[in-house]
Structures are given as structure tokens and as C-alpha cells.
């Protein structure tokens, strides 16, 4: 008991010291992070929990009983829902106080997004409005623009949409053909072009539109009001899921936009688009966590109720394995997302302390952690897809029926791997960014890779790690070496050509993601033990161990795939031996650990972590 108390004291002292040194994005690969450095969701305060609870109450009273009305696109339902959310302050969470917002922290806005993540169509509507719709003005708007638009967006009086994608410019966003031409009087830009897949398009009052002025190479961004005229749109798209969210094709035909509505500077649009998508990506990861938790709640509840062979199916190992695995992956992606969220927050504070205005600090911090944002987008959305898929399976035949909640959850989840940059684009981006930073000398990646290559020449040491989670932490350190070995060698062998070898890039991206998530879940378990005592964290420890065990297997498989795909024959053997050395399986009983996790949820009849 006393030991636990002294640990806590150390934490507060150490975290004060640590806070002064915000880390760099991507740096996790090169350093050993201490548990005290990471934020874990269990550290959210009473006020933040109350906000999450109120958000849940809003969902339970306004959305859950009305899902059919929402998804059948009952006229006016969705805009009214946004307005109700606005009344509660849910649209104002991240908006600065001087513009009618609440000015809450980055991780608090992540938490609210997480809770809303379980609402399918509304989640997309909310994300489009508060994220990509509002943030360009919040981060890039001048005083007049912010004063005019932000209070109305924060209250829900005006609704926002973001118009980047075009029929021939999806992942290749800068290929957009929409044009802006200054009128003769020099008072207005006339925007002409076609935009696609515009969330909230049907009812938005304000559109952030990307267009190229004259023959510019780069986009510029404009704040366009529906009332400006020259805007028409197609009917609502018929979609696989999130059917209640408005998705339109929008046509701008010499839409007159006052010159003062140019956002930031001419030609700055692509930069705005990319930076805003960084926020969108990590927020999307938060939403996926919330979606996964709702599905697990339902799956556990159904498994407890559904009787077969004279007993609840929750009593079967095959079902326990599913429930546990759903929880483990959700817990892991949550650990990594909030860790990244706090790293962003710390960086913002660090930059502000160094004299940067808040907006610029936020943008710089997000740019710094763009790698983590991309990683969490991929991981979170894939966890959600996995969880909903297994959710359908736990429900059996009922999972396939539109009468039960799983069918909708399954369809709604699928878009998350596509929008905010496809997961493939994000994988390419994150490896590309890492390499770019290494080339620029911002990250000492190649030195570290050389050191690992040197280590391969020496005999392996057999140090047995002892202590709680020590074995797992040692394993994650080795996984980092596996990443450095493969990434370093690929960069060395292929040079610029690596960017063209997308299969290799994706395999390396997967290795990196697994390492980040495994380390995050271990750090969370370790910090929790320090805060609550080992005896109160048995399931969390089990989850961290199983995730690490699985991450090792996956890193091994992706590493093999990469090595066999790019390495010259004479190097393969050495690299594969190295990979084997760095991905030695953990000796644990995954079945017993997963059962422990599942049993705890089954007893409480819900997701409890």
C-alpha cells in the first residue's frame, strides 16, 4: 500500500519534470518511453467524465430511440439533431472561448468524439461539422472570419461541410479541377467546379471549398455560404452504411465568394487540407474506439442472453475468445490514441510556451504528430471493422438480421477505412514522413538502423527480463529493432524507389503501427498498476500481454513479407535470422488470459475497461 503511494508521488514529480520536454512525432521508435510520460484514459478527471456521460445521455435520449428516423433520412431530422447537440455545447468543445466555444483540451474533444463514435450516421455528421468543417476557420481564419463564423458553428445555428474531393481527385486531392477566378471588379472570386462525397452537403450553410485560383499549381481554400448562390447539388447518395448522414455531389457554377472569404493565403489550400486531415484522422480513431465499445457491450449482452445447448453462449470458449479479442484490440487502440492525443497537447503547450500563437502551435503540433495520426486512423478503423465483424459472428443468424444492431454497425463501420484518407494512403504517408524526417536529420533513424545492423553481426545475448510486464517490454524493444532493421535496409537498398514499392511500404507501416500500439498498451497497463495496484488491474495486464504476444506474431509476418519482397538474395538469410531474433514469441497462455478478460466482462454484462 505504502509502495503504491510513493509510486504515485514519484509520478507527479516526474511528470512535472517530463512535461517540459515534449517529444517528437515518430520518435517512439528510437527511445524507450516511460509509463509516467504517457496519458491514459483512466486519468480523465471528473469534469471530463461528466461531459462524456452527458454526451451518452444525449445519445440515449435523442439518437438511440430514433435510429430508424435518422437512417431513413427523415427530412430535417439530422440538422435538428445537430442543433440539439449545439444546445448542449457538444459542437463547441474545442472552439476557443472568445468565439463562443468551451476551449477544452485536445484529449477532451477526443473523448467526446469517442462517445459520439457509437452513433454511426450522426458520428460522421458531427465529425464533418466540428472537425473538417469548423477547424479550417478556427485554425486558418483571420479575426473577422473567426468572429463571423465560429460562434454560429459552435452553437449549431450554422452547419458546416468540407469540399475537397472531386470525381477525378480523391486520394490525389491536389489534382482537383475546381477553379476560382477573380471578377472584374476585384470584389469576388467566382468558383466553378464539381465536388463529390460531401458530408453534410444537403443541409450545410457554410462550405470550406478548395479551388485553384486561375492556373495556380496549388489549391486555395474559401469559406462559401450557401446563400452566395451558384450552388446546386445532386440527390443524396445511396450508401452502404451511415445512411442517415447527408452525402452530396455539389456543383459550383460561378459561385460568387467575397475576396475576404479567402482562407489563409492564396495557394495555401493543400497545406490546410492536409493539416486539417491530421486532426480528422486522430479524431476518427477516437470515434472508432467509441463504436467498438458499443458493439462489445451489445455482443457481451447477447452472449449472456442467448442460450444454446442448455447454456448461455457466453460460457463457450469460442465466444469468450471473440469477446476478449474484441476488447483487447479496442483497449490497445484506445491506449495509443490517447497517448498520441496527449503528445499533441503537450507539444501545443510546449510551442505556446516558446511564444507561438495558439493556432500556429496547434497546427505545428499536429504536423509533428502526423505520423501518429495516420497510424491511429489505420489501426482504429481496422479494429472497428474487426470488432463489428466478430460482433455479427457472436450474434450468429441474428447478426445478419437488420432487426438486431450488429447489421447496421457492420455497415456503418466500413467507411472508416476509406474516408479521411484511405488506410492505404495513410500507410504510405506515415512511412514516407518517417523517411523524410530521417533524411532531413530530424530523426536519427538511420543511425539507429546501423546500430541494429551491427548488432546482427554479434552473437545474441540471452538476458531474461524479470518483473511485471518486463518480458513484454523487452519484446517491444526488440520489435523496434525489427522495424529499424527492415526500414533501414529497405531505404538503403531501394532509395527513392522505395516510395514506388507500395507493398513493401504497407508492410513496414504495419510493423510500425503494431509496435506503437503494443508499446502504448503496455505503458497503460504499467501506469495503471502504479496508480491502482497490481491486484486491481489483472485484466488490463492480461490484455497488454496478449496484445504484445499477437503484435510479435504480426510484426514477424509483415517483416518477412517485406524482406522477401525487396531484399537481395544474399541478404535475405541474414535479415530473416535477425527478424527471428527480434520476434521471439512470448511464452504465455493466450487462452487463459483471454478467458480472464472475457469472464470479467461477462460478469458485468458489458465492456468494462
Amino acid at each position, binding site marked *: 500500500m505504502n509502495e503504491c503511494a510513493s509510486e504515485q508521488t514519484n509520478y507527479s514529480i516526474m511528470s512535472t519534470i517530463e512535461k517540459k520536454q515534449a517529444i517528437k512525432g515518430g520518435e517512439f521508435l528510437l527511445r524507450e518511453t516511460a509509463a509516467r510520460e504517457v496519458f491514459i484514459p483512466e486519468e480523465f478527471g471528473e469534469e471530463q467524465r461528466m461531459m462524456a456521460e452527458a454526451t451518452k445521455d444525449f445519445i440515449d435520449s435523442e439518437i438511440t430511440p430514433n435510429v430508424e428516423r435518422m437512417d431513413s433520412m427523415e427530412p430535417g431530422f439530422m440538422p435538428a439533431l445537430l442543433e440539439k447537440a449545439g444546445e448542449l455545447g457538444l459542437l*463547441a468543445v474545442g472552439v476557443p472561448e472568445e468565439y463562443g466555444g468551451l476551449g477544452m483540451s485536445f484529449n477532451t474533444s477526443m473523448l467526446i468524439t469517442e462517445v459520439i463514435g457509437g452513433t454511426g450516421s450522426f458520428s460522421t455528421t458531427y465529425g464533418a461539422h466540428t472537425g473538417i468543417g469548423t477547424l479550417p476557420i478556427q485554425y486558418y481564419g483571420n479575426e473577422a472570419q473567426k468572429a463571423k463564423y465560429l460562434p454560429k458553428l459552435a452553437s449549431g445555428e450554422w452547419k458546416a461541410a468540407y469540399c475537397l474531393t472531386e470525381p477525378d481527385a480523391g486520394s490525389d486531392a491536389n489534382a482537383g479541377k475546381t477553379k476560382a477566378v477573380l471578377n472584374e471588379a476585384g470584389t469576388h472570386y467566382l468558383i466553378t467546379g464539381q465536388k463529390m462525397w460531401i458530408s453534410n452537403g444537403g443541409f450545410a450553410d457554410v462550405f470550406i471549398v478548395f479551388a485553384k485560383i486561375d492556373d495556380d499549381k496549388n489549391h486555395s481554400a474559401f469559406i462559401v455560404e450557401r446563400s452566395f448562390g451558384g450552388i446546386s447539388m445532386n440527390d443524396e447518395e445511396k450508401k452502404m452504411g451511415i445512411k442517415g448522414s447527408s452525402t452530396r455531389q455539389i456543383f459550383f457554377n460561378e459561385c460568387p465568394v467575397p475576396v475576404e472569404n479567402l482562407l489563409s493565403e492564396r495557394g495555401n489550400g493543400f497545406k490546410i487540407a492536409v493539416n486539417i486531415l491530421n486532426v480528422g484522422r486522430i479524431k476518427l480513431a477516437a470515434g472508432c474506439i467509441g463504436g467498438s465499445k458499443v458493439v462489445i457491450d451489445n455482443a457481451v449482452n447477447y452472449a449472456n442472453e442467448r442460450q444454446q445447448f442448455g447454456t448461455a453462449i457466453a460460457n463457450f470458449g469460442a465466444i469468450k475468445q471473440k469477446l476478449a479479442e474484441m476488447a483487447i484490440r479496442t483497449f490497445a487502440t484506445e491506449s495509443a490514441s490517447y497517448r498520441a492525443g496527449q503528445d499533441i497537447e503537450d507539444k501545443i503547450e510546449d510551442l505556446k510556451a516558446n511564444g507561438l500563437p495558439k493556432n500556429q502551435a496547434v497546427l505545428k503540433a499536429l504536423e509533428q504528430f502526423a505520423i501518429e495520426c495516420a497510424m491511429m486512423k489505420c489501426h482504429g478503423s481496422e479494429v472497428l471493422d474487426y470488432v463489428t465483424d466478430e460482433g455479427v459472428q457472436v450474434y450468429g443468424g441474428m447478426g445478419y438480421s437488420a432487426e438486431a444492431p450488429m447489421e447496421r454497425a457492420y455497415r456503418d463501420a466500413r467507411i472508416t477505412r476509406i474516408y479521411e484518407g484511405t488506410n492505404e494512403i495513410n500507410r504510405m504517408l506515415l512511412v514516407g514522413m518517417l523517411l523524410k524526417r530521417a533524411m532531413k536529420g530530424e530523426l536519427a533513424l538511420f543511425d539507429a538502423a546501423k546500430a541494429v545492423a551491427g548488432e546482427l553481426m554479434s552473437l545474441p545475448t540471452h538476458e531474461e527480463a524479470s518483473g511485471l510486464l518486463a518480458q513484454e517490454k523487452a519484446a517491444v524493444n526488440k520489435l523496434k529493432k525489427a522495424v529499424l532493421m527492415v526500414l533501414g535496409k529497405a531505404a538503403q537498398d531501394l532509395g527513392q524507389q522505395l516510395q514506388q514499392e507500395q507493398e513493401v511500404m504497407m508492410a513496414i507501416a504495419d510493423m510500425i503501427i503494431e509496435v506503437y500500439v503494443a508499446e502504448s498498451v503496455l505503458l497503460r497497463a504499467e501506469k495503471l498498476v502504479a496508480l491502482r495496484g497490481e491486484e486491481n488491474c489483472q485484466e488490463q495486464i492480461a490484455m497488454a500481454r496478449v496484445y504484445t504476444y499477437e503484435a510479435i506474431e504480426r510484426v514477424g509476418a509483415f517483416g518477412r513479407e517485406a524482406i522477401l519482397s525487396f531484399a537481395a538474395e544474399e541478404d535475405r538469410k541474414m535479415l530473416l535470422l535477425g527478424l527471428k531474433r527480434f520476434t521471439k514469441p512470448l511464452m504465455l497462455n493466450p487462452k487463459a488470459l483471454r478467458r480472464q478478460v472475457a469472464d470479467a466482462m461477462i*460478469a458485468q454484462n458489458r465492456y468494462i475497461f
Partner: protein
Amino acid sequence: MKILVCVSHVPDTTTKIQFESDGSALNKTGVTFVINPYDEFGLSRAIGFKEEGKSVNITVLCVGGPEVEPTLRKALAIGADDAVRINTQANDPAYVAAQIASYAEGKEFDLIFTGKESIDYNGSTVPGMLAEHLLWPFVSFATKMDLQDEERAVLHREVDGGEEVVETSLPVVVSCQKGIAEWRIPNMRGIMAARKKPLAVVSPAEITPYFQTVRYNYPPPKGECVYFEPDQAGKLIETLAQKGLI
């Protein structure tokens, strides 16, 4: 007008109740606590008076240790003006009623709201005893309440097979039933404002607890279902007779 809203800190309605192994107390591990939903009706009605333009100060009160403060802050976030925690464990209904009465005495409240019952012990006895201590009128199971003026109120209350409309003088103790108001979700601004509202901790009056809970028992496990085929009517009658049911 001064309104006192009494709230209990109770396990969430979906909690799977478990007792300590010796049955002496509720096992609180992993249990989420909420404002007793019936008490929340009272809070919501009090806020309603404010919204109707009346000059109202709402004090929310809970008898309990520091662990109940989140419940009080939630009430502040919903719209109460200030909060009071009587720093003692809510041992039994008579003790709680005496503590609240002792606090309310002389503070010139015009109205005290409670829930019709707390969803943990379902005693329904605190408001009646409280009114008795204060020598105030008591209207139970109120489904509607309007103020006529500063001294009189009209209330609707549930009775078997219908409702009763009563008129009462103020001050009055009212226990609230569904219908008197809708629950409210605290808005984000309210949540942020709550931390700035006063929460006073007051010492309990010297009152000896009236009784002590000896043990909690679980309900007996459900019996198994026995099925009879259509041609086994005789066996069914025999079984029912054996159980003394016919």
C-alpha cells in the same frame, strides 16, 4: 424563493448488485453511482420554476461522505445554484430525515423536494419523516406541481386508479414521481460552471442512528422450468399437488 432538493447517491440502474462475502455491505467495486432518478425529477422541476421566470435559489443536498460529491457536482451542472453535503454516512432513513431536518431548520426554505423513493433501498420514508420533523405539510408521489403564488401550490398526485389534485400552503415537502418534470442532460457549459459553484460540507447533527443493517441476502435462485407434454395432465396435477399449490 428558496428550494432545497435532496438527492441520494445510488448505484446506476443497470448495476449488477453484489454484496461483500459476509453479506454486511454492498460491494462497490466497479459500481457506477448516479443521482437517484426520482430526486432528479425534483431538481428538474425546481429548475423549471426558474425558467418560468420566478426568482428561485436551488440548493441541492446529500447526506454522505466525500464519495457523494460527484453526484452533487452533477446536480450543480444540471442547474442547482449551490450544494451542501452533510458529512456522515446515510445510515438509515430516519437518521437521514433527522439530519436533513436539522440542516433545513431555520433556513427559510419554501419548498423541499425529494424523490418518491431511492432506487437502492426503496424505502419511500425519508420525505414523510422530514415533514414530520419540520411540522410541514407533505405531498407524496407528486406528478405535477404549479405555484399559485408565493404561499400556495397546487399538486397532482398519483392515487389508485386515478389522480388527486391538492392545494397546499408553503413551505411543503414534496416527493416526486415521474411526470412532474423531464430529466435534463447537463450541458457542457453547465458542467464547466459547476466547479465554480459553492459546495459546503457541514457537520452532522448529533443524532444516534436508529438501526443497523445486520446482513443482506440474495433472493433465492430461480427454480427450474419443468415441461409437461399435452398428454401428461395427470402428472401436472400431481406435481402441483406435491408442491402444495392446489
